[in-house]
């Protein structure tokens, strides 16, 4: 076979494989959106879920998802940032650092249901936190930490060593260089990583089933005192999220419009995750432009 023919065949095969992947994704998205979007309405997005009647919404679940996401990010981001700074800027290649790296890798490949069960045993049962937002947020932190750490570490390692040398040569300590030079320069790519991992956390169900719980008690949106259990901000109330809700109603839901609610909720979930992913890139580019503005 001539080299040219071989090349053409190989190219065609590679295009076909790539096309297949794109097609599978597009088909799944189209299926979910076509089924779910017609059911979306302001009422659906804000109303309480109903267990036995037609016309329930996903209001509380949607709020829970965002609240849990924010809490989980508030806990995991500082830890991930610190770990990433240590690994990329300070750690020397010793047994200890390679152990930390291995630990992160193992953690990132833990099945999320295992993370959930671990969270259940430790936080829900042992520490008596119960099925609560706080238990869920900690479980999500375990789930999120390795990937976020890795992503921030990659962002930091993309800043050339020239910048570190420049800082050192100007009499800045290593810490000053990291905080005032390296971090600001890597903000765009860190933000992209954070938002993408937020999308993953938002769609996570298995880690939350046994930690944040499967019930969404009604909330009093007039009460913003986090210490009242009925308050939306209370971290000690059980909180079924959107992803858990989809799982729950599909396995044991008995409302008559079950398939519509499920389709609508799935569509909302997918749309939010897509918004996260697209805005991550936009936000990163935007920040970078701002940083290098001319």
């Amino acid at each position, binding site marked *: 076979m001539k080299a040219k023919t071989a090349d053409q065949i190989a190219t065609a095969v590679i295009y076909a494989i790539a096309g297949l992947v794109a097609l599978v994704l597009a088909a799944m998205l189209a299926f979910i959106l076509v089924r779910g979007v017609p059911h979306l309405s302001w009422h659906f997005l804000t109303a309480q879920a109903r267990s036995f009647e037609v016309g329930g919404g996903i209001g509380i679940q949607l709020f829970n998802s965002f609240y849990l996401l924010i809490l989980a990010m508030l806990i995991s981001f500082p830890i991930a940032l610190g770990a990433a700074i240590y690994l990329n800027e300070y750690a020397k290649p010793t047994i200890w650092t390679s152990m930390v790296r291995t630990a992160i890798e193992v953690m990132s490949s833990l099945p999320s249901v295992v993370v959930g069960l671990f969270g259940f045993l430790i936080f829900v049962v042992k520490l008596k936190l119960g099925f609560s937002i706080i238990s869920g947020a900690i479980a999500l932190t375990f789930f999120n930490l390795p990937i976020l750490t890795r992503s921030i570490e990659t962002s930091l390692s993309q800043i*050339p060593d*020239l*910048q570190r*040398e*420049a800082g*050192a*040569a*100007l*009499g*800045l*300590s290593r810490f*000053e260089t990291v905080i*005032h*030079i390296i971090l*600001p*320069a890597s903000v765009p790519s860190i933000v992209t990583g954070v938002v993408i991992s937020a999308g993953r956390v938002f769609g996570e169900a298995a880690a939350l089933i046994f930690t944040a719980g499967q019930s969404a008690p009604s909330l009093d949106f007039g009460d913003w005192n986090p210490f009242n259990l009925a308050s939306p901000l209370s971290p000690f109330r059980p909180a079924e999220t959107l992803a858990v809700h989809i799982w729950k109603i599909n396995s044991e839901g008995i409302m008559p419009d079950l398939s519509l609610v499920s389709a609508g909720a799935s569509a909302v979930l997918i749309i939010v995750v897509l918004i996260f992913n697209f805005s991550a890139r936009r936000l990163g580019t935007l920040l970078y432009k701002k*940083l*290098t*503005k*001319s």
Partner: protein
Amino acid sequence: MTDKSQELKPVSDFIPEKAPERYIIPMEDDKHEIALSTEDLQVSYGDKLSLSEGDLRFERYKITSLIGASGSGKSTFLRSLNRMNDGVANVTGHIWYRGLDINSQDIDVYEMRRHIGMVFQRPNPFAKSIYDNITFPLTRRGKYTKAELDEIVETTLKQAALWDQVKDDLNKSALSLSGGQAQRLVIARALALKPDILLLDEPSSALDPISSAKFEDTLLELKKDYTIIIVTHNMQQAARISDYTAFMHQGKVIEYDLTRKIFTRPKVELTNDYISGNFG
């Protein structure tokens, strides 16, 4: 290749039969004001000794060039002078600056580097505005009024011959500058700390010829107030701008003399081979 170069090797008239293997210009304290000197400086990476016998004295308000082939140890030597090799290599011996051995463990390295500044081969402005690039290292250590900072920015940018090009864009990101401009900004940033000594590690090798020529003019201007030690691959550059030149080979200073002597009448044969391009 080797045969040919041996054929072409000129027999220099002024190198006597018994040429010395090494020559270092004596600099008596009463005739020369010494800004920096090294004594028994040795740099090793792991077990590998990469630099030894680097006893040099650098005169104040002069430009000293370090020349030599790649891997001759000139950059390593330069980077040891303000402890940039800390954590990278093991540096022993003494570096004397104002009566202090700055290679000793008691020295506050961060403070010392504010006296002995360094500019690298590739421009490395921070991802900040032009203005902040210059003021940031200052404000980390001292208190300055806005007027003082403005003044410093203007003075240093003028010294680095960049002021006219950027005076209306001081809030622009430094990353938008061209390579030559960025390198001059980096110089201005180093000057803002008012160092005594500037160490330059092949500072113009990444610049185009025009930027490079401007850069050399800048250095000659700076010589009035600063002691400059520059590593360069470009022998013409060394000949044009420096007062003293040190030729290094395999980790040793082979010859250190007035630039005009090195380039016209080198005392060591190896130096002659190198500057006449007949390195064997």
